[in-house]
């Protein structure tokens, strides 16, 4: 593949197609076994990121490589080859920020910043090196559409000044809007190069996967809001669970049988706290959580599971699943009671293995067997396993946090379809997600969590991307106005 000066080029591919490995080689984190790179007519083989940075290649990482307990200026200094003294650096940060519309306070702690601001830190850190090539790995996965627009504007300015940008993303609409060329990787090979403006998002996705993708479909009969709600949450309050979290304030919502309620919002606005309270990991300070007319607010997660409230938290390894335990053992962990996998404290392993085989078959989990460690599965496959484990327990209500975060397009589509099927079969589903397209695709009603406040649910037909984006970035006052 090649890159030209001043162009914005996209690198597309599913998870595990080799995108990250490729850019890590360019950035000196991984050494290629074979082949060579030529940069400005000279052979280029960086042995570490410092060499790559001196040569003029900078990278913004998918998972932020920032230090929460350090200030913006300190974080930026760490990513520079030869940083100036701090007062000079602070001035430069402010100047660069103004030039590209990415303003930052150099003295604030990174842990207190929003995702959008954190990303600015990473970008400014790169820009201060005056890079010739800027690599961006999934930069918008945590941004509101409005924040993403600011980012695109800055990137276009940079490209106009002659900086080459290599842009990695799952979001095909973005790539169509931003990039003039796209290189597509599948299973470690370049399979195509095209102009993304001339292709539809579906065509691009199919080139990535190599097969056609089916968009999740809702059944004609959608849940109607007659009678009593299945699940009712009233005035939940909870303090932030970490320094960098958000306290929940008077959160209330209702879910009826057969519907999918989407809860949108940028991570860090109370999602983790809401999930903890709903699952019973942490008891709320006040308020009620009613399922089928029973109050669950004081019950622990296992008691809630027995009553039909199941959940799949965001963090797959370490929260939804124990990484160093087999899939069978993981299947037992949440399904023990509902699937009667043990008697008098003795685990029935053959039944448990049978159950985990059923999950693997019905949910197309790609793994050599039920004895493999959970952490050996790719993100998408483990997520299919986790969701499958909960769905096969026939929940009355399933709560999922970020169901398709970091999952490739094909697996994401199949997970969404399964969630919709679950709702169609009469159960209720609550999906907490920051992916607006996902919410629009599968939800019947959408609420937005912002600063610990939850907006009133509105039918999905009344909403579009921009509305939700605005609600996600909204302050408490404007949210309440929107409610009123």
């Amino acid at each position, binding site marked *: 593949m090649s890159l030209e000066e001043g162009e914005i080029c996209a690198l597309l591919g599913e998870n595990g197609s080799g995108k990250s490995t490729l850019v*890590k080689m360019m950035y*000196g*984190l*991984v050494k290629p076994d074979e082949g060579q790179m030529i940069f400005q007519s000279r052979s280029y083989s960086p042995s*570490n*990121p*410092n060499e790559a*940075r001196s040569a003029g290649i900078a990278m913004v*990482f998918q998972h*932020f*490589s*920032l*230090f*929460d*307990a*350090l200030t913006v200026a*300190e974080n930026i*200094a*760490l*990513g520079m080859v030869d*940083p100036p003294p701090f007062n000079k650096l602070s001035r430069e940060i402010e100047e660069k920020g103004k030039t590209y519309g990415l303003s930052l306070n150099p003295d604030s702690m990174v842990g207190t910043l929003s995702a959008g601001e954190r990303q600015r830190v990473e970008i400014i850190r790169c820009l201060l090196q005056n890079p010739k090539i800027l690599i961006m790995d999934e930069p918008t996965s945590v941004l509101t559409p409005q924040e993403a627009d600011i980012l695109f504007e800055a990137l276009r300015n940079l490209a106009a000044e002659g900086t080459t940008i290599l842009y990695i993303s799952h979001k095909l609409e973005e790539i169509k809007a931003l990039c003039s060329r796209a290189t597509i990787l599948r299973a470690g090979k370049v399979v195509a190069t095209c102009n993304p403006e001339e292709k539809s998002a579906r065509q691009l996705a199919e080139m990535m996967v190599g097969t056609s993708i089916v968009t999740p479909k809702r059944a004609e009969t959608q849940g109607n809001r007659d009678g009593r709600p299945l699940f009712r949450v009233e005035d939940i309050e909870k303090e932030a669970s*970490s*320094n960098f979290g958000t306290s929940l304030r008077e959160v209330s919502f209702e879910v009826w049988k057969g519907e999918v309620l989407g809860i949108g919002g940028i991570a860090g606005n109370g999602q983790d706290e809401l999930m903890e309270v709903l699952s019973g990991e942490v008891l709320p300070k006040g308020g009620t959580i009613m399922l089928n007319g029973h109050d669950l607010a004081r019950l622990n997660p296992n008691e809630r599971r027995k009553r039909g409230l199941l959940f799949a938290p965001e963090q797959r390894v370490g929260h939804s699943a124990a990484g160093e335990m087999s899939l069978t053992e993981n299947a037992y962990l949440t399904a023990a009671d509902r699937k009667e996998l043990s008697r008098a404290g003795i685990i029935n392993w053959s039944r448990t293995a049978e159950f985990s085989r059923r999950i693997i078959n019905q949910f197309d989990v790609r793994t050599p067997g039920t004895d493999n460690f959970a952490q050996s599965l790719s993100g998408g496959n483990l997520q299919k396993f986790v969701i499958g484990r909960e769905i096969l327990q026939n929940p009355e209500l399933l709560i999922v946090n970020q169901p398709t975060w970091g999952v490739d397009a094909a697996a994401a589509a199949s997970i969404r379809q399964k969630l919709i099927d679950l709702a169609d079969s009469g159960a209720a589903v609550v999906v907490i997600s920051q992916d607006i397209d996902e919410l629009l695709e599968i939800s019947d009603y959408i609420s937005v969590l912002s600063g610990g406040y939850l907006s009133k649910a509105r039918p999905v037909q009344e909403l579009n991307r921009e509305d939700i984006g605005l609600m996600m970035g909204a302050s408490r006052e404007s949210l309440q106005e929107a409610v009123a």
Partner: protein
Amino acid sequence: MDFAAINPLIFFSTMVAASIPVLLAALGELVVEKSGVLNLGVEGMMIIGAVCGFIAIYNSGSPFFGVLASIVAGGLLALVFGILTQVLHSNQVATGLALTLFGLGLSALIGQPFAGIKPPTFPKPDFGFLGDMPVLGQLFFKYDYLVYAAFLLVIVVSYVLNRTRAGLILRSIGENHDAAHALGYNVVRVRLAAIVFGGGCAGLGGGYLAMIRVPQWTEGMTAGVGWIALALVVFASWRPYRVILGAFLFGGVTLLQLNLQAVGIKINPAYLSMAPYIITIVALVVISGSSNRLSNLAPGSLGRLFHKTM
């Protein structure tokens, strides 16, 4: 009972001297923990430093060689820990505990012939007329060289950690080793350096105990000071200057119980001997209870194994 027998001036100056071993050890461990490593072997490194320092000063008669031997012995033992945990990826807690047990055993073995002997006296700087000043002279100018060196070291460590690039890199590695690695910093090398520095400090702390404070070699003479040093790092919430405060608290209470026994308080002396340890635990509970931010002050990667994945 006669509290008047406790002279506050002498009490203060003895307290300062009494706090030096725990101060040095805690300062070293603080740097190690700032780099994200938990080394529970402080006690072992201290006692090895104590016995080696004692043997060196006794055989050579030179305080310089005594100090050097303490530092090198502690540093070498720490290097063993560093190679085991950083290169061979052994568990930090288990390895640290093993280091303590190993240090206690080895020091007892090599220290056997030296038990109960008096070492040469350790020199003190002469401040001339400053030392003759009433009160102030007694308070500030009557110590041996190592006391001044220890306080200077606190200032240097604080400056390096907070004001220099080297310190920033060390803190970043302790905060998030994956991110630091992604930025191209050598996590293992920086941690090894921090571990060896921590070992040297602990060794010197032990050496101070055997060469100056007691001064003689007794088996197991560190008597849990290494563990107190570990607690002090948390007590100080990973800030170098607060380590001084914690060391004074521990040194002060240790001394007070000796003084109280001397003036004949009618309590079983066993209770008094427990007091410094109990007070350290109470102080820890109070500060961790009063602010739920304690866990947020700790370095983010503390005690976590680092595997290069990329």
